[in-house]
């Protein structure tokens, strides 16, 4: 993993791995958690577990905004909250909308890094070389 220049970040990953897993920082007003997420360009939102949202000081149960999320196996009604910041690979994006939903324990990750974060970048994924680039 390295910073290629001021405007570009590269992350090397195993192209044969089941997914691209990154450490992602999720931040509330006065609290921060760094968890592992799967990069998911098929996910409209960043997704975090309910408990992490609550630890950050948010109350997803009383969120004014909810959405139906279509997963591979079901349609789920889930709250949307706006995190103070989300960061990965050293790049901080403020005021990111995230959906609160718990992934199965077998995933062993704490969320999905979806489009509500990724759409701030030009994202390049080279599966032949195993390089993720955010520009």
């Amino acid at each position, binding site marked *: 993993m390295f910073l290629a220049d001021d405007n570009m970040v590269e992350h090397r990953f195993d192209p044969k791995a089941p997914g691209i897993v990154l450490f992602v*920082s999720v931040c509330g007003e006065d609290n921060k958690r760094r968890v592992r997420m799967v990069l998911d360009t098929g996910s409209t939102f960043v997704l975090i577990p309910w408990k992490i949202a609550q630890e950050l000081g948010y109350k997803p149960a009383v969120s004014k905004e909810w959405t139906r999320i279509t*997963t591979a196996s079901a349609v789920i009604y889930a709250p949307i909250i706006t995190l103070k910041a989300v960061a990965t690979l050293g790049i901080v994006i403020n005021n990111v909308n995230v959906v609160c939903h718990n992934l199965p324990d077998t995933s062993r990750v704490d969320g999905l890094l979806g489009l509500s974060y990724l759409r701030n970048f030009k994202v390049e994924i080279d599966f032949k070389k195993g390089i993720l680039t955010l520009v």
Partner: protein
Amino acid sequence: MIIMIKIATIEELEKQYPDEWLLVEVLEEDMLSNPIKGRLVAHSKARDEIDEISADLKGDYSIFFTGEIPKKGYAFCF
């Protein structure tokens, strides 16, 4: 679940506690904000036990699994 206070690199902790969930207070990060050193607060095979402790903590903490992701024999499809 074991609650403890131990400072080590993330790499050392991953080797020492394989296939467990760790709760670590982050003390150092690399240039890309990845945690590289921290104070181990708790480790457990059960994620729920880690959540019970982290629920009351304020600050910069990392929660992660040290083993294979996803669980062996499973694939991601969300």
